[in-house]
């Protein structure tokens, strides 16, 4: 499966933004100090569009995902500022009860590990019906059963009638992940967040699963946010990419732009540390050093200490987010000149 092939299946994103995130901040308050896990993130997602969020472990990707559905880990995590506007409604201002009716219905989420995402003591059909009933308490039994069957069919599960009676331990990881997908899509949400949806699957199943997500998007026009650290996944599925580092987006651009003209040295470094198949076997490149501690962030650019292109200014002042091309923004003092472009 190639990127071109998938692109052909997806309609051009239409212009109305379904999700608008402005300056979202989620901090974790612990006895060691305040961790700024998400520190001022802004982006928009249009219907039928796929946004990839890339970054290394601990950059705040998953925390961002949880903040979008207003479920930062209790009791330490708290959303301290910003707006998450879904269809013109700010989710941050909603009551907990209103928020519950949004989760799973208007904004859904697929978690990392399909092996663990299903309750081992109930059959798959039972859990699907439960997922449907959560937002439709008085639904007729027959209707619910028909809908859960329909949901299984929509994710191309073979022999769905039989599968409904199966327990999670009787299924493969890929099958479980499809069922989790079916549960997430049961209400045709406008936004689907997939937090590393393919990490636990093996490579052949990964491609199938990504194709399935694109297929669902094609049919329902759902806006998808894929959180990953795999540029292969990004290349195959995303329209836009946001690179996250130490709680902030350092660069956002259409997918081809990111690959061809990275305007932030961190993006460049991430791209360079991918395994390459087109060159002769070389040592895998890595980014020297560690991300900064989120409890004790530097004043200047958060990547500066690890950046080989850093100038004095980088250490003194955080760079503003500047627009460099259509839909391409980066937060780096040297993005205009991009000295890393040749390397």
């Amino acid at each position: 499966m190639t990127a071109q092939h998938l692109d052909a299946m997806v309609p051009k994103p239409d212009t109305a933004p379904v999700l608008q995130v402005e300056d979202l901040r989620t901090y974790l308050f612990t006895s060691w100090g305040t961790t700024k896990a998400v520190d001022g993130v802004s982006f928009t997602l249009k219907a039928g569009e796929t946004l990839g969020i890339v970054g290394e472990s601990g950059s705040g990707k998953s925390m961002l995902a949880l903040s979008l559905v207003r479920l930062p880990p209790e009791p330490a995590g708290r959303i301290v500022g910003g707006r998450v506007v879904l269809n013109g409604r700010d989710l941050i201002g909603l009551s907990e009860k209103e928020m519950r009716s949004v989760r799973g219905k208007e904004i859904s989420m697929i978690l990392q590990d399909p092996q663990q995402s299903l309750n081992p003591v109930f059959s798959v059909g039972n859990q699907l019906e439960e997922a449907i009933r959560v937002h439709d308490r008085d639904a007729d039994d027959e209707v619910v059963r028909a809908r859960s069957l329909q949901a299984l069919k929509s994710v191309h599960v073979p022999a769905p009638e039989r599968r409904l009676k199966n327990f999670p331990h009787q299924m493969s990881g890929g099958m479980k992940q499809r069922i989790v997908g079916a549960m997430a899509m049961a209400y045709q949400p406008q936004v689907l967040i997939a937090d590393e949806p393919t990490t636990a699957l093996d490579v052949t199943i990964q491609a199938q699963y990504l194709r399935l997500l694109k297929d669902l998007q094609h049919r329902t026009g759902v806006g998808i946010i894929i959180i990953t650290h795999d540029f292969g996944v990004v290349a195959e599925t995303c329209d836009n990419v946001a690179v996250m580092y130490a709680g902030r987006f350092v660069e956002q651009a259409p997918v081809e732009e990111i690959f061809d003209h990275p305007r932030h040295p961190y993006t460049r470094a991430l791209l360079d540390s991918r395994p390459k198949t087109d060159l002769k076997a070389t040592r895998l490149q890595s980014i020297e050093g560690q991300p900064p501690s989120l409890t004790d962030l530097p004043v200047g650019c958060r990547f500066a200490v690890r950046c080989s292109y850093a100038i004095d200014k980088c250490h003194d002042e955080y760079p503003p987010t500047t627009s460099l091309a259509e839909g391409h923004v980066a937060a780096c003092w040297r993005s205009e000149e991009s000295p890393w472009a040749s390397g």
Partner: protein
Amino acid sequence: MSVRNQPTRADNESTSMLGTSFDSEGQAVGAPRRRLWERRSNRVPWVSIFIVLFVLVLPALFADFITYHDPLRGNLADRLTPPFWMEDGTWTYPLGTDKQGRDVLTRLIYGARISLTVSSVTILIGAVVGSTLGLLAGFFGGWIDRFVSWLIDTFLSLPNVLLALVIVAAIGPSFVTIIAIIAITIWASFARQVRGETLSVRETEYVARAHVAGTPTWRILARHVLPNVANTLIVLATLQVGVVILEESSLSFIGAGIPRPNPSWGVMVADGRDQILISWWISFFPGLCILLVVLSLNLMGDWLRDFLDPKMRQRGRG
């Protein structure tokens, strides 16, 4: 009672041996569906089930129909009659009589009723109270957890017998008192176990999935947490029946339990204590009942723990 059980016991041992030979065959061909009794490592403890059924449950339920003596009033003329197989023994009193001429077998059967009632009532109370508190503490954490954990620690550190003696000395022994005392001492072990399990279930992906799917909290507790700690709860309850019977017997033995002349097994052991060298049967049979029932319940609990383990289920069904 236990003597009558002997043939049954031999019978069912041969049954389970038959099951074993089946098992080794079934394993060799990799049979996809193995029945309960065909699992070698985890054979059903039929012997224990029979003992619990015939020594505890059935006598307790049908005490009025299977006995023909009064458990409380004896015939002094027949006092200290030995069991039937001994010299002077008669079939009228199969297991002999005590100092007051009461039939030991009859009292054993009514004693089973007391043991079963005390254990089921206290375990019901203990399990409901304990698991509710444990569930809330484990799931919500914070001050609820701190408070409940403190309660658990406090109650687990109380010496049961001493506590019982104090309470009984203050308000006098009665059926209700003994139930209250035992319930107070066992809820904490339920709470501790359920809290621990809840802590781990709370962190699972399926609970996280339920959260992001907009499931209300009470529903997450009822649908995802409780069913996943239920196994532990069932096993613990089974094991606790033995503990409670032992505790009730001990308390009755020292006089802080079931008030005389009610035929608790512990009371009976205590009553025969001073005759133990001559009329050994008065203490021996209730003691044997306690031993067999408590041991069997423990074996059943062990088996249940393995049987209810989801991993075993997976292996069994392939």
